[in-house]
């Protein structure tokens, strides 16, 4: 049983990821026999290095990934540190779960319109200012990166808050906090100074995952990123899908470079963290600084409020566009609101929502079953760190190789490969959530059940599971929301045959009917929220 559980986890996560990486490494080094490339060579790498715009694409990806990670992390630390002493933090922590569940693609679709020169914010002031046409000015890629960065921060901050809060709960800090208080430190400052460094150390993998996503994600880069040149992950996708098939080699080489870039990003993060630690030490040595702490907290509040307002507006905009008749610049609101689009597109949206839900629920349930099997049969609660591998390597760096692997296994692209690919990304989150509560459960209940003559399975089913109902339901909901938002795994493993709300949203947002894109974004956001509400109800 133990072997089965271990093997299952290996086969579902480690093997496909490593095989996928190999499947990219080989063509990157010139080996792709089907196209007649059997001699290893560095030519693909050289060709990619010579691609015009490569440097800029890489630099932009690195910058947006690093900046969004740093800002999200600072906000998350501030929020987590204030949970005991500040109302706003407690309130935000409660918001974290639904915020994590909101798919970033929905936000992206709304944000793109909200912040455009012809977008809603400008339209609201265009009338009073007498503008007839949108302002035309020569703004560069920096603007796109700013919007992209904001959406990334919105997506990552709640996730980091959840991780840091979980980490903080596992540290017994009562004595050190009491000591700090006796030395005249406020609760917030004491936590920032005494506990935050430890949180960061323990949350390392989550931070890397956030950084890698910021640098290496394809979907947000497609929807919000600059185009000339695009961000590095988009460049990789373009090469991997180029009509000239020999460019696959270059695509693999570029994917390899993207992986290297995330490594570089991590190194930069470490350097930045070391520099920050120097400043931190100075602050640490100055004794209590309540006014500075208050100022920091207030800055964090303003930033968080702005982000939340931005989030709320994106959803208002999505709702407005999905109901809008003609809506031309500079009208602040659509001339007519009607349900035409919803009526006409209901069957389509329902079909996509059905596929999305089917994949998400199946994936989340399998992930939960596998994790429970592993925990119950191995008796361990510390997760193997390779479980995080799919999250700390850019998705595009192994999904192309994985596609070839799935085909070699004779799996026709379709639902099953998509579910397998989704498991790579859902399993780590499920495992993290479940293992934690599994480790914290009171072992005396199980012991008592066993001493009353129940077998291990009866104990498992009738004692352990019911006790953990709430965290297990939450793990299911989180698994569902992770799956719902996945774009690239669906695209590659589904062979394009599987249309989910996420793939549809990316296609539509890149160019298409903004009304339908908005409606898709709304339904996309609805699914995880429903899952979360159901989980809360079940967990009660």
């Amino acid at each position, binding site marked *: 049983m133990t072997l089965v559980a271990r093997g299952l986890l290996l086969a579902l996560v480690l093997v496909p990821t490593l095989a996928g990486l190999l499947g990219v490494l080989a063509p990157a080094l010139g080996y792709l026999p089907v196209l007649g490339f059997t001699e290893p060579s560095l030519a693909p790498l050289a060709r990619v290095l010579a691609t015009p715009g490569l440097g800029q694409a890489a630099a932009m990806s690195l910058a947006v990934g690093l900046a969004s990670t740093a800002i999200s992390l600072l906000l998350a630390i501030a929020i987590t540190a204030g949970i005991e002493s500040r109302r706003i933090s407690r309130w935000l922590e409660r918001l974290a779960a639904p915020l994590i569940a909101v798919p970033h693609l929905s936000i992206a679709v709304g944000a793109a319109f909200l912040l455009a020169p012809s977008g809603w914010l400008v339209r609201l002031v265009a009338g009073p200012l007498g503008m007839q046409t949108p302002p035309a000015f020569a703004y*560069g890629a920096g603007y796109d990166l700013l919007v992209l960065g904001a959406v990334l921060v919105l997506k990552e901050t709640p996730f980091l808050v959840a991780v840091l809060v979980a980490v903080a709960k596992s540290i017994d800090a009562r004595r050190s906090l009491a000591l700090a208080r006796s030395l005249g430190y406020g609760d917030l400052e004491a936590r920032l100074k005494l506990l935050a460094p430890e949180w960061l150390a323990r949350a390392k993998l989550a931070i890397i995952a956030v950084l890698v996503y910021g640098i290496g994600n394809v979907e947000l880069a497609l929807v919000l990123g600059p185009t000339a040149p695009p961000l590095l992950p988009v460049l990789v996708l373009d090469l991997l899908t180029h009509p000239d098939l020999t460019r696959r080699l270059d695509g693999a080489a570029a994917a390899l470079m993207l992986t290297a870039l995330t490594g570089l990003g991590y190194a930069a993060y470490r350097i930045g963290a070391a520099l920050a630690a120097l400043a931190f030490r100075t602050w640490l040595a100055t004794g209590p600084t309540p006014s500075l702490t208050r100022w920091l907290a207030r800055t964090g509040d303003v930033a968080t409020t702005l982000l939340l307002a931005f989030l709320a507006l994106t959803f208002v905009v999505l709702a407005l566009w999905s109901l809008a008749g003609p809506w031309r610049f500079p009208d602040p609101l659509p001339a007519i609101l009607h349900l035409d689009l919803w009526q006409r597109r209901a069957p389509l949206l329902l079909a996509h929502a059905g596929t999305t839900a089917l994949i998400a629920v199946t994936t989340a349930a399998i992930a939960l079953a596998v994790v429970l099997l592993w925990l119950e049969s191995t008796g361990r609660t510390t997760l193997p760190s390779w479980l995080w591998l799919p999250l700390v390597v850019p998705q595009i760096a192994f999904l192309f190789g994985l596609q070839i692997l799935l085909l070699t296994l004779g799996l026709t692209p379709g639902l099953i490969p998509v579910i397998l690919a989704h498991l790579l990304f859902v399993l780590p989150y499920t495992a993290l959530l479940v293992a934690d509560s599994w480790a914290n459960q009171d072992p005396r209940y199980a012991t008592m059940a066993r001493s009353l003559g129940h077998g291990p399975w009866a104990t498992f089913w009738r004692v352990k599971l019911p006790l953990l109902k709430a965290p297990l339901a939450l793990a299911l909901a989180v698994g569902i929301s992770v799956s719902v938002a996945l774009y690239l795994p669906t695209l590659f493993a589904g062979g394009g045959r599987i249309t989910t709300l996420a793939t549809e949203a990316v*296609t539509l947002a890149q160019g298409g009917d903004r009304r339908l894109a908005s409606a898709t974004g709304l339904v996309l956001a609805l699914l995880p929220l429903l899952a979360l509400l159901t989980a809360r109800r079940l967990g009660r």
Partner: protein
Amino acid sequence: MCRAKWLALGVLALGLIASKAMAFETVREAARGQTVYFNAWGGSTQINDYIAWVAGEVADRFGIELVHVKLTDTSEAVSRVLAEKAAGQTTGGSVDLVWINGENFLAMKENDLLYGPFAFDLPNFDLVDTEGKPTTLIDFTEPTEGLESPWGMAQFVLIHDSATLPEPPADLATLAAWAKDNPGRFTFPSPPDFIGATFLKHVLHAAVDDPEILTAAPDPATATGHLAPVWTWLDDLQPALWRGGRAFPANGPALHQLFEDGEVALTMAFNPAEASSLVLDGRFPETTRSYTLADGSIGNTHFVAIPFNSDATEAARVVADFLLSPEAQARKQDPQHWGDFTVLDLDKLAPEDRALFDAIEFHPATLPPGQLGDTLLEPHAAWMDLIEAGWRDRYGS
């Protein structure tokens, strides 16, 4: 003697047609119950609706299940078939029918990723206007050799709002001057998007003295010289483009969105009826009009092809044949449904079939066939590679 000869020929022709029809009957029988995964660009709701109509018809008539796999770019399907070939999957491929032309067709043909030839054996292929529309046989500069079946005709048009821009720039020279007078109001999708690439092809056509050289691969020795005027023209235009030429819309629909938002004053399409469908959709104002450049405008044909590892080649052929039927072609040409011009020769049609086409009304935003001006041919794909690479070097990075 003469009469007997003609009679014999006639009988022979009839026999050929009859045997073709009979042969296809067996294909139809085999097709029943098969599922066709039709990989087609899914960015237009109108086209998606048309394909959904086709799916309903082939289900009713031939018992075929047609599934529309919506692509953001046709190259996705090409790469998938390639990945399958890489994995040694020679049957049961994920793509059964693909909407294709140009460089994607060339890539699939050169890599032996196509099933066929099959197109010439489709009964309805006999109705195709291969003489009047030579691009139904030659895709860009590549002979189709029956490996793809024509589906529709495309012609490049520019679109403007006659209320705000009553006299749009008539040719490329005036376009440059107008753009400089109205900075930020003109742009094109970034190549390799096909709308953007096609716009650049017009610039290329205008730049070379002898368009004949564009039908063959460029001579490396002289190509740079031929391309120089293209870059001069674009360099001159660059600062006057939307966002100062520092960013470009990703594709045609993205450019339409900028036009709908009022950011740019011109948009472009490879389908003369696109403007009217957007007007009917409520997205573009009623005063929207289309026009072609006085320099001539590029026209081409788009096709459907069947990958080598499809398990549903019979059903895919039946669908390809249905797409060529007068009924399907007429519906496709109707701007209410799609507005994509037919590949058929209307003179070859039976009167009742022809009436379907004559009944189509064109919205004022659409230029009807015959008012589209001179058709320019697609340059050889290698020219486009040069232009795309050159454009990326200069402006795309």
